[in-house]
């Protein structure tokens, strides 16, 4: 397949379709990358039209309040490796409890895909859900816990690992329409 190295369409500024910042739903879904059924997951360019997990698995909700979770990506040019984008998902474990200590250890050892719902939903709400780390997963890059800051919460960032890149700055999750995609997101992509 030929490389995409030319612009194919205009970059428009539509006053009806304006940008918005922030995440919605007060939660993100973290999926263990090994639980993704790659054969049944379908992508068309940047859009994931079916995100299917292995039978009996599900994603896990990572809840937050206010604006205390975010996602971002950055282009990473390389003289030696393939150029691409680095993805980041920032969130927090709200309390310094035993349960959250277990979660912290699991996050430290795991590799995840993060799905979020942004406040910007696009035309016909088709761009509401963003997926980060679908190709290579996100690994823990940083976690800090300070009893004097952030109400004792543990802040963490999972990122694209060094040496890996993603082909798109973010992927869009859209299975049929917003309602169907929202139902999947709310159910944390649980596969029976």
């Amino acid at each position, binding site marked *: 397949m030929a490389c995409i190295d030319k612009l194919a369409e205009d970059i428009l500024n539509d006053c009806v379709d304006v940008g918005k910042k922030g995440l919605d739903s007060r939660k993100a879904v973290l999926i263990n990358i090994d639980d993704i059924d790659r054969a*049944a997951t379908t992508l068309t360019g940047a859009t994931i039209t*079916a995100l*299917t*997990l292995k*039978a009996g698995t599900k994603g896990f909700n990572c809840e937050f309040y206010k604006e205390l979770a975010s996602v971002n990506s950055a282009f990473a040019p390389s003289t030696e490796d393939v150029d691409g984008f680095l993805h980041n998902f920032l969130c927090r474990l709200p309390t310094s409890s035993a349960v959250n200590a277990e979660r912290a250890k699991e996050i430290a050892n795991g590799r995840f895909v993060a799905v979020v719902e942004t406040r910007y939903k696009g035309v016909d709400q088709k761009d509401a859900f963003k997926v980060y780390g679908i190709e290579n997963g996100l690994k823990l890059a940083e976690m800090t816990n300070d009893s004097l800051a952030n109400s004792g919460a543990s802040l963490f960032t999972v990122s694209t690992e060094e040496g890996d890149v993603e082909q798109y700055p973010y992927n869009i999750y859209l299975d049929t329409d917003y309602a*169907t995609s929202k*139902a*999947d997101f*709310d*159910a944390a*992509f*649980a*596969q*029976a």
Partner: protein
Amino acid sequence: MKNEARLKIIEVIKAGDKEVLKNFDFLADEFKRKTGRNVVKGCRASVRFMVLTLNYFTTMSEFKFNGRNVHYKYKNELGVQVRIKADGLTDEEALKFLKQKPERISLFSEYPKDWKELIKGDIETEAERIQRLEVEAEAVEVAKAKAEAVNSKTNQSEKVEKQIEEAENEQSDSVNSVVEDIVAAAEAEAIKAAEEATASAGSDNNSLPSKEVLLSMSLTDLRAKWPTVKATSVKTFVEKLLA
């Protein structure tokens, strides 16, 4: 509520008021079984209440997932990715879901005690039942159309056979008449030749062999020599000849 009774109630309620009144006794029995209350047929409000209550009971599922607004994706028996939701869950959907993998019972907070027995039989959702009835109706119509086509073909072939028979008869008639003409012509010629032979042999009448000689000849030879004489035995032939 048993599945058959439930499906019948759904069908009757969907069909409208006429069907409700037609099946009133059945609905009233089911209503009494569920609520312990009687229904007065003449009272519209009572009948309406019965219909609403039965509608509620038939759409209510005995299965409940853990948690509200739960939604699972899974591959059905055809390998197609489908969804099952807590919202609007029916017993049939839950049973099909469990029949595929009974260990999924852990996803339910409420379920009937005999769920293991229920998943053993054939399970058909309302949508599948409607689809099955449509397919069966279509199959019946196709079979009817085929039978009609076969019948019309048979009639056609009978007609054609008759026509062929008639044509053959005509043909055989015409052939027969030709044959008859040929035979008649041959006979006429034979008669003519025989008359000529008789005329030429007329003078040789006195030279007829004796009776004993004639009687010793075969009928074939006699006929060949004297074709105008008709007889079926030598004795009769000789008598006629000498006469």
